[in-house]
Every structure is written in C-alpha cells, then in structure tokens.
C-alpha cells in the first residue's frame, strides 16, 4: 500500500512560478492597453470628426448614458450642437474641448488620461494584482495548514502523515525500484 504523499518542493516552486507569469502577463496586457488608449488620443488631434465618432465617447449629461444610445430632448440638443461643430470643421479633440466648456467635465465618457485621472485606468489593475496576490498568499497558507493536519488516508504508522524527510526517502526508494 502506498503512503499518502505531500506536494514536493519542486511542485510548489512550479506553482509559484506559474502564478508570477500570470501576474506579469496581466501587467503587460494592461500596460499595452494604456499605451493604445494614449496613442489613440494622440491620433485624434488631427483627425476629421464625425458625429458618430464622437457620440460614443461623450455622455448625455441629463440622461446619464452615452450619447449614442440616449433618446431625449437634451440628447437631441447635444447632437445638434456637435453636428454644428463638425460642420465648422473642428477636430475631435477641439469638439470635446467645446463640449467640456459647455457641459463640464462630466460630458466625457472616459476621463482624460492625464494627471490624477490616470488613477481611473491604473486602480483596476492594481486591485486585480492585489487580489491575485491575496489569493496566492491564502492558497499557500491553506495548503500549509492542510499539510500540517493529519491525513484521512492510509499512513504507514496508522495515524501520522509522513515527514518531509520520510517523503524524500520514500521517493528515492520508489525510484530505485523502477527498471
């Protein structure tokens, strides 16, 4: 009959490495997305604007929804105002500036990626990283606690789990039996 075996040090190190890789992938993905948002904003500066371009990036401030799905008189007025600015040949950035002048910062669907507003983009990432870190720490602690408890399964001496030393010895002996 085989004794109950605890996870080896190598397996634990593999699990830690995998978790670290997952964290790094998450960070890299988010950094890439942030760079994409920044470069898209930079690209807006010279682009010719259309109403369709803009109305999914601004809010109907009275409706509390994005303008492209808002159906109300204030939303219609807002669209008319944007259309007039488009007809004047203003760029997307210029139109957004005018909207902020008339309606306040709340008209932007996404906060500007500058200064303190960057926190809106960074905080979710930080929260995810902290949550993953917490899960990692708790998982290790639970596994250690589980390892410290007596096993329900069969054990050599009828009640106590194998120590790490005995576990390694058993591994070596079993390996010696292999052809």
């Amino acid at each position: 009959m085989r004794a109950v075996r605890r996870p080896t040090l190598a397996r634990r190190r593999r699990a830690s490495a995998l978790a670290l890789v997952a964290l790094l992938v998450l960070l890299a993905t988010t950094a890439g997305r942030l760079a994409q948002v920044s470069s898209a904003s930079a690209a807006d500066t010279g682009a010719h604007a259309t109403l369709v371009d803009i109305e999914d990036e601004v809010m109907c401030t009275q409706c509390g929804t994005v303008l492209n799905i808002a159906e109300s008189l204030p939303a219609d007025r807002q669209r008319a105002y944007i259309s007039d600015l488009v007809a004047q040949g203003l760029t997307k950035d210029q139109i957004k500036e005018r909207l902020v002048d008339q309606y306040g910062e709340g008209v932007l669907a996404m906060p500007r990626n500058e200064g303190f507003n960057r926190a809106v983009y960074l905080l979710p990432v930080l929260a995810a990283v902290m949550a993953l870190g917490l899960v990692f720490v708790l998982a290790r602690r639970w596994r250690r606690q589980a390892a410290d408890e007596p096993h329900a399964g069969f054990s050599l001496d009828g009640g106590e789990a194998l120590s790490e030393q005995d576990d390694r010895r058993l591994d070596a002996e079993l390996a010696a039996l292999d052809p």
Partner: protein
Amino acid sequence: MRRAPAIAVIVAAAALVGLLTYGIASSGTDTTIDSALARGERLRAPDMALPLLDSDATGSIADFRGKVVVLNFWASWCEPCKQELPLLQKTQRNLEGRNATLLGVDLEEPERDAMKWVRRYGLTYPSLRDLDRKLARDYGTTSYPETFVIDRDGRIAARQRGPVDQAWLDATLPKILAEKG
C-alpha cells in the same frame, strides 16, 4: 488563523452591501432642505462661483448679499422651465426697487441654446451656468424647474419643486421681502 479568511470575506461582503445601499440611497431626491423648511429652519444657501451666461465673468449668490434672491434652476430643453420664464421676468420687474432679484441657474446646455430663450422673453435678470450640475446637486435638485427663495441673510427661506405660479409667488415673497435681515 483559520478564521481570518472567513472574516475577510464577511468584511468584504458587508462593505459591498454597504456600498450598494449608499448608492441606492444617494440616487434618490435629497429632501434635506424640505425637511429643514418643514421644521421652520432655514439652512445656509449653498453657493459657488459659476460662469455667467453671455459673459466671460463669473458670479455667485454672494454677489447679492443683503438682497432677497429668487434662485431658479432651468434649462431651455425643459418645457415647463420655458413656460414659467414670462412669469419670472414679470416678477423681476416687480422686485426692482425692493432690494431683491431673480437669479437663474442654467443647467448643462450650450450657451447659445439658453441665450435664444433669454432674448425671446427679454430676460433682464442674470443667469449662472451650472456646468456639471454641481450647484444643483448641492441644492438637492434632480428635476427642473426648481425655485428657491434666499433671504437677506443668505439662508433658504422657501422652495418650490416644479414650475412656480402667481399664487405661490404671492403667498411666499411678500413676507420674506418684508424681513429686515
């Protein structure tokens, strides 16, 4: 030690429920001013410097210290707001010489839209432009129009949800105008 994760989960769940409750509660109409008025109490009128309509300058309620101010939240896309404008302009004429004034607060619209109606009704009282609805939020205003009467000491003496009418003005203004301050 085994209890720590369970406690963390309970605290997190309680925090989430608390946040949801706060969100629901705070999205309703603010009745703080109504409750105070019902008790016969006059709260200090919230104030902030805001851009003036059709001007590069800013203004605030404090600019009219010592006067009775009839503060009216409005927008040109709001039909009842537009319907009461002629009555408000008539009231402004009656307030001249009595150390009192109308003060409009135009909400979240391009200046040109508001000015169209200012010119149409020949409004002679000033309007502030409440971008982001910050002042409206301080007054607990969620629907328009709403009118507040601020006494000479800068406290809210009366409030009308919805359009005002002559009867309400006749019942409300004379006694506040008669106060010395």
